[in-house]
């Protein structure tokens, strides 16, 4: 589910702005570290974790927005290869900035008591935190759908994804729409990071691994297609779980192998891509 949230953000940015955002993973990491800081600062207060969950993504989104306004928006017309390299450069910078801000050690936080432990479903333990994720995931999907189909800005974003020039000619401030769309994508990245924070150790290498997984998920789902990102994330998650059961030592090989198989059979992704 976390993979979905992150991938959805990446896919959205990819579809609307045509930007393959390599530093999306860095924002995920920033979200996790920010959640750590906020939750620790508010440790005394009961709602601390929930506040962190809301604010940490905002930090990530703010960082993304700064980059976008300052430099990225000037580069939209460049070819994809340049955008990939540019966002890679930003990723390198952000990685070091995180190291400077939070130090090289890894961090961790614990979920609030309400989310610790597990429910018992007919005798099978169901971790409470997983239930949270199972709720949040679809919520995000629905929220995204509502955004792109029911709000004015969302609809413009969808139109711009298909035909940027015409939307511009219609007198709509495309650059503002792009900024907002990018903001949304970054928020999702940060949200993914905040959500994952209690479940794993927060390290400096998080950005490297998550971004490649997100890109692969987005590709197998169909570039720019949010439902594709959902399917891709599910596929990735399920195969990893299966792998853990069958061959724990090689569990991460399974999702990558599945990705390869899908791409060999359907190189453009399972669902239709915007490209």
């Amino acid at each position: 589910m976390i993979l979905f949230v992150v991938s959805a953000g990446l896919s959205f940015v990819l579809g609307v702005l045509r930007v393959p955002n390599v530093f999306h993973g860095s924002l995920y990491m920033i979200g996790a570290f920010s959640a750590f800081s906020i939750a620790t600062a508010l440790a005394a207060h009961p709602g601390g974790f929930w506040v962190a969950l809301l604010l940490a993504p905002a930090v990530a989104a703010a960082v993304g927005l700064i980059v976008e306004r300052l430099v990225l928006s000037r580069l939209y017309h460049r070819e994809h290869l340049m955008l990939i390299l540019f966002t890679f450069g930003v990723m390198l910078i952000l990685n070091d900035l995180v190291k400077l801000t939070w130090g090289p050690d890894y961090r961790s936080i614990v979920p609030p008591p309400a989310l610790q432990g597990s429910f018992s479903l007919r005798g099978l333990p169901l971790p409470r935190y997983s239930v949270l994720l199972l709720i949040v995931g679809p919520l995000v999907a629905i929220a995204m759908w509502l955004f792109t189909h029911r709000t004015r800005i969302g609809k413009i974003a969808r139109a711009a994804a298909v035909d940027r020039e015409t939307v511009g000619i219609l007198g709509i401030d495309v650059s503002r729409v792009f900024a907002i769309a990018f903001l949304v994508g970054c928020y999702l990245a940060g949200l993914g990071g905040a959500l994952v924070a209690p479940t794993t150790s927060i390290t400096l290498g998080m950005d490297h691994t998550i971004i490649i997984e997100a890109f692969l998920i987005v590709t197998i789902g169909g570039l720019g297609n949010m439902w594709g990102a959902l399917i891709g994330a599910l596929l990735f998650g399920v195969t990893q779980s299966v792998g853990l059961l069958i061959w724990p030592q090689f569990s991460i090989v399974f999702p990558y192998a599945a990705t390869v198989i899908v791409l060999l059979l359907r190189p453009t992704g399972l669902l239709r891509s915007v490209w």
Partner: protein
Amino acid sequence: MGRVVAALAALVLFPLIAPTFYVYVAALILVTALLAMSLNVVLGYGGIYQFHHGVFYGVGAYAVALAITKGGWSPWIGFIAGPFAAAGAGLLIGWFCVRLTRLYFGMLQISLGSLLWTIVLRWYPVTGGDNGIHDIATPVALRTVGGAYYFILAIVALSVAALYLIVKSPFGTTLQAVRDNPQRCEAVGVDVRRHQLIAVVIAAYFAGVAGVLYVALERSVFSNMLFWVLSLEVFVMCLLGGWYTFAGPIVGAAIMVALRTFAGRYTENWTMVIGVMLILLILFMPEGVLGFALQRLRPAPAADEG
């Protein structure tokens, strides 16, 4: 030609005057330069988005490492076998990828390469997983920095010469045409896919050579050789130097390795420096250092000859 001879002479004499550490860095630059040059065969000359070139580098290195440590082969034979293993990987991966257009070629390659990375990462008993393999029994003659340096210099010089001939051959000219306009090439009778596949195999072979040389120098292999970040860094080297020029990647590799080694002494955050440099490059000098320099130095195109 004279410049090349002078450069070679300088490189040969270098260890005699420079302290050992600098010789080591120079050797590392040579290895990395070859890796970047091999990528540029498909990237700059072929227009192929080879996003995970590092796979072939890693395969070459691991092949040698495993042949020596697990297979007990003589290192010299291992050195010869490594690039062929890489070329084999190139053939296999390339065969699947050349059927796709640019972006999807890149994505499929990343997925195949990442799959290989996960396997290497987790197959602890064989590949040493996260730690890699160390203290590989390379030939004694190569265990000094000087010895390794001259060996590497010789192989790299030969490889670069070979690459030069390849680029200047009909294959190379046609490859550039494929880069510029694959549709036109088909219309004049060129089998575009076969051409691209052969280019990928050649690039993989020389990446494998670079991998073997790395083992000769460091006597270790690491799983991050197959990780995508390294591949993208090699990409950056080509861009930095200028990917439409022949020697551009060498310049790019030299700058990157030098930056990493020396900036690393002053600050822990040299990655940030590379990031900033990359961004400045994209904004202001997309044809790379060498490309930029050549544009300034070259006179305007000659007038019509009649």
